[in-house]
């Protein structure tokens, strides 16, 4: 009864907080099968809402009206109204969807199907599957070029970044990177592509024009075993000056000067830091910490962790509603 009560209060808060609809933070909790919603102004938890089984990847439409959640063990993508957290409909995703990326226009959605070695392309309006693109073993990371022409998929056991043409759904290039690539992130100007390698312990910097690796960023933290440094999530500021890399069980987020691709700092966050998301003004960076069940909030300009917020069990993905 207590649980129900708090959910109702949460809902009431959501509705009354109409003015602050933007800048809300949505966190998927892989083990407790729910999403925690955090107020991006006060950093208070607004509510926790069930979203299906084993939620991992999460994203939001550019206009902020549809929240997409990979319900991995339900083998579909669930779509919610971010204001009420009511389920609107589901999208076919193919088996075991883990991560996805939305075309910058809001349609279609590109989904990595981890168990089936394919990327499924789904129309977010018609809810139809447009294509299934065969990729390497254990597809995971999904990135999209700022102009929307190319989607990147990383395959964790094949160890490649696959370049997928978003018009033809054909693979146009494959770049071999270090072991277990997890995440792909373009700079806002499209001049660079970052691919993190969890077991390799590196971030490959790729020139998207030539599909060549121009540099590999590696990490060294005093007192932390090299094996524990496992790059996963990555985000770069839109002005292209700072790259943040989540280092998994090293419990640190690396700060990289994105102009030189040199590491400048390591920030101590919660345990097994996984994915990252900026607030719309890029003042804050939110991190999901899977083993300590919390979210760390980083002051982007000051390179400082300012808060941690308790969420559900094994937080995995995070997205912030646009302004």
């Amino acid at each position: 009864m207590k649980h129900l009560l708090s959910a109702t209060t949460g809902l009431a808060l959501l509705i009354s907080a109409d003015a602050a609809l933007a800048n809300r933070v949505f966190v998927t909790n892989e083990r407790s099968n729910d999403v925690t919603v955090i107020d991006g102004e006060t950093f208070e938890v607004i509510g926790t809402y069930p979203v299906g089984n084993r939620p991992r990847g999460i994203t939001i439409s550019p206009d902020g009206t549809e929240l997409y959640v990979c319900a991995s063990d339900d083998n579909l993508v669930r779509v919610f109204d971010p204001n009420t957290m009511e389920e609107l409909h589901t999208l076919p995703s193919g088996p075991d969807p883990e991560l996805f990326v939305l075309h910058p226009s809001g349609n279609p959605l590109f989904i990595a199907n981890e168990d089936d070695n394919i990327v499924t392309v789904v129309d977010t309006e018609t809810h139809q599957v447009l294509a299934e693109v065969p990729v390497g073993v254990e597809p995971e990371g999904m990135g999209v070029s700022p102009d929307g022409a190319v989607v990147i998929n990383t395959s964790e056991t094949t160890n490649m970044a696959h370049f997928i043409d978003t018009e033809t759904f054909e693979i146009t290039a494959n770049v071999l990177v270090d072991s277990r690539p997890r995440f792909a992130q373009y700079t806002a100007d499209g001049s660079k592509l970052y691919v993190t390698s969890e077991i390799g312990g590196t971030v490959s910097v790729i020139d998207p024009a030539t599909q060549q690796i121009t540099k590999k960023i590696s990490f060294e933290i005093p007192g932390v075993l090299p094996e524990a440094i496992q790059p996963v999530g990555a985000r770069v500021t839109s002005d292209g000056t700072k790259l943040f890399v989540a280092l998994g069980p090293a419990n640190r987020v690396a700060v990289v000067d994105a102009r030189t691709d040199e590491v400048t700092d390591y920030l101590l966050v919660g345990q097994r830091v996984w994915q990252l998301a900026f607030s719309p003004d890029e003042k804050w960076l939110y991190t999901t910490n899977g083993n300590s069940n919390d979210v760390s909030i980083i002051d982007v300009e000051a390179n400082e962790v300012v808060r941690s917020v308790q969420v559900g069990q094994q937080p995995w993905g995070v997205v912030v509603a646009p302004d």
Partner: protein
Amino acid sequence: MLKGIIGLLAGAAALAQPAAAQTQDPVLIRTAVLRVDDPGLPPISRLDLPPDDLGFAGARLAIEDNDTTGRFMGQDFEATEVTASPETAGAEMAKLLEDGIEFVVVLADDAVTLELADQVGDQAMLLNARARGDNLRGEDCRFNTIHVAPSRAMLADGLTQFLMWKNWPRWFLIHGSHPDDQAMAEAYRRSAEKFGAQIVEEREYEDTGGARRTDSGHVQVQAQVPVFTQRAAEHDVVMTADEADVFAAYMPYLTWDPRPVAGSAGLVPRSWHPAMEAWGGTQFQNRFESLANRPIREDDYQAWLALRIVGEAATRKQSGDPEVLKEFILSPEFDVAGFKGQALTVRDWDHQVRQPILLTTGVLTTSVSPQDQYLHQTSQLDTLGVDRPETQCQFQEAS
């Protein structure tokens, strides 16, 4: 007996795949899996009965994985599956060598693995996916063999580190009467000395060939085990070394003193376990189970990893030349991912694959060693097993 060749079908699919912009035929990389079945006693528990496709199913998953990557590299993998008895193993290996196969995954006991290594010489690389003998990594080491299966010393050290962390240093060691049981007991003695545990009492549980799975078996066992274990010196743990699977599974809850059981039963050190979910393990388990329709076994994991080593080398070197691949696998640049949270590499002093050891109960992974507090100047994984300064392995120049 030739069981079949896997990989050809996937190869045909690879040819039809337009995306990789391959202009020429894919390079074929040929391997074999030779499983030598020992007609021993059935296991104590019927849950442990070996499936027909033991090891082969893991190899099939590796070929699927390698072929998926191969599609983008212009490479095609195949594995010939062969079963043999200890008597026919040599003849089957001769056929594979005659056929020109240069990578052979071997699932056999210590003695047969060594015989096969000597037979092969420099004609092929053996990937040992079953034999745990410390001698195979020590005085009987062979340059042509990569040990994918962990050694007894590694398994023992993985367990000992955990027991020391638990502050359970006093062991009552019970070993069987078969040579492999004695070898495992020796590994525990060595490990106890290395990490400061004490074996306060040691007993041998002789295999007298009594009834094990008969109707009345459990009644007798219920009476026998408490009697066998009574009046032991004060101990924290009952450590069992029972590779022949004669008694250890009976120990939990039947010991005279109420003590946890570890080793061959209770808390068991393994290379892999079907409940392992960390480090992407869940999707690996899913892929295996949808292919084999059963939970994975250690032999499957080890055969999978063996063929992934060949596949990873072929991807990284962008080559199907066996000489190029062999040299790369043995070089310090080589590593492979195996769902254990860190890169797996090959020790240059005995060709053992460095790897974490899982400590498992019946349904879960309780811990993974190395434990955090055991540090090492080069790799923490080298706190498990025989390290460079202690090795007795001296590779002969390849003949």
